[in-house]
């Protein structure tokens, strides 16, 4: 419990900054929504002339794209990208900082197993992610309320917002795995940024080409906004894939961390 509370207070400031930045991204993009919708009628007309096949190929369903859901789903890409950085930083940092800060021998000489140390740290990281997402969902709802021109279903919006949480969990687990795999991490951000952006680029390039297989390779593409808007639900196979990734990554982190030779600070 001490480790858990210690980590929460250590990350308090950074969590506040992350919540504020994510809210800022949301609000700035949402503020553009009125401008975006103003020429909807003209755009819809142009789009309507395209053959059906092309429209499906580009994954645009006319009715969705210019609704508040479609727009929110689009800006969510950027929020999730930022959120993934937060989660990966958190997962990598919370495990590796004892070695980097030369406090590993202090912590591990306490009457506490390594397994419990990892559990406490991961629980703290999970709590931080939950807090961030509660704030994120709240701000999303308020921002949508302010700019929406028609009434919208809160359920769909929150379901969209929840993909942020799911993607963050994947990156949290990946971060923890990276932290135990890489021997000496001096700078967390130098590990997390390339990893997050590589997966982001993989996913986005797949999108440009309409390549469906790429979706399995990038967590950013696990949860398709068009699917969520249409079905008000998540795709089961991707939830299963996500669960598998998380379980494997976390289990491996425990196994490796318990056995690993942790560098003493001397």
């Amino acid at each position, binding site marked *: 419990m001490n480790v858990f509370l210690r980590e929460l207070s250590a990350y308090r400031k950074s969590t506040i900054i992350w919540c504020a*930045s994510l809210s800022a*991204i949301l609000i*700035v*993009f949402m503020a*553009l929504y009125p*401008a*975006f919708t103003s*020429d909807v009628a*003209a*755009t819809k007309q*142009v*789009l309507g*002339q*395209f*053959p059906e096949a*092309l429209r499906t*190929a*580009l994954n*645009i369903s006319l009715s969705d*794209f210019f609704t508040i859901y479609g727009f929110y789903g*689009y800006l969510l890409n*950027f929020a999730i990208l*930022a959120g993934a*950085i937060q989660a990966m930083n958190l997962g990598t940092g919370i495990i590796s900082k004892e070695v980097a800060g030369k406090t590993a021998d202090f912590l591990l000489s306490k009457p506490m197993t390594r397994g419990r140390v990892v559990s406490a740290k991961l629980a703290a990281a999970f709590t931080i992610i939950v807090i961030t997402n509660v704030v994120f969902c709240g701000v999303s709802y308020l921002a949508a309320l302010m700019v929406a021109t028609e009434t919208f279903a809160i359920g769909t919006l929150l379901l969209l917002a929840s993909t942020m949480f799911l993607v963050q969990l994947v990156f949290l687990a990946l971060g923890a795995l990276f932290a135990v795999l890489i021997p000496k991490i*001096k*700078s967390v*951000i*130098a590990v997390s*940024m*390339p990893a997050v*952006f*590589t997966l982001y*680029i993989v996913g*986005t*390039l797949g*999108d*440009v*080409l309409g*390549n469906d297989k790429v979706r399995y390779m990038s967590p950013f593409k696990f949860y398709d906004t068009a699917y969520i808007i249409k079905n008000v639900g998540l795709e089961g196979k991707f939830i299963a894939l996500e669960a598998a990734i998380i379980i494997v990554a976390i289990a491996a982190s425990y196994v490796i961390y318990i056995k690993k030779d942790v560098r003493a600070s001397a």
Partner: protein
Amino acid sequence: MNIYLREMKAHRTGLIWWCIGMVGLVASGMAKYDAYQAAGVSVQEMMAGMPKAVLTVFGMTGFDLTKASGFYGVLFLYIGLMAAIHAALLGSHLVSKEERDRTSEFLYAKPVSRNHALTSKLLAGLTMLVIFNLATLLSSFYFVNLFGQGESVGADIRILMMGLFLMQLIFFTIGTAVAGVIRKPKAAPSIAMSIMFTAFLVSYLVNMSENLQFLKYLSPFKYYDAAVLMADGRLDPVYVALSVGIVALAVLGTYRFYSARDLSV
């Protein structure tokens, strides 16, 4: 010279990985073009009438995707993004690492001034940026030619890589300036990254709305927009001047603040 060599060696592995990553990005991107071509998708003419907002959403504004060069233009956005991350991290790490690793007392007990150490570090960083750029340039030439079916793309790639280098310089010097000013060594890379990320988001905001065009001066990603560069065939002098200004200011700031502040030991 010692500090220069020391930094080159310390960043060697990282730089090799970055170069491999860039070659991989260009290779896999262009390989996808090949698959795309082979599938016989010709959407270009249908796309011509698409509204700007929709194309922006798919990141395809102003490119002829049926041609290797147009495809490379789409890829360039991501090449630029990776280069910006690399440059900003490199700049902020080079300057802040002595404090982070508690080696500044060791370094500054040597008979070198802070300015001298800083100059060596900046030169090492510059060398690495050039290597990074060359790796991207050569792999671009190779893979675009390989998949390009005889299309001549040399001029396009050269102009894009010049833009890329200026963008690298901007983010590199922003990184060094942040690390020069900020007293907490661990915060410097994070702040440099948030500046980079904000610039990235601003470039999307500019794409989305005509009313936000004035914001384009805030984002180096917009200075070297692949679609514009390839259409004009030259760098926009306004943006080049702006880039040089930013770089000069940032370098000046790095020296001024870093040599004048208390180092945290």
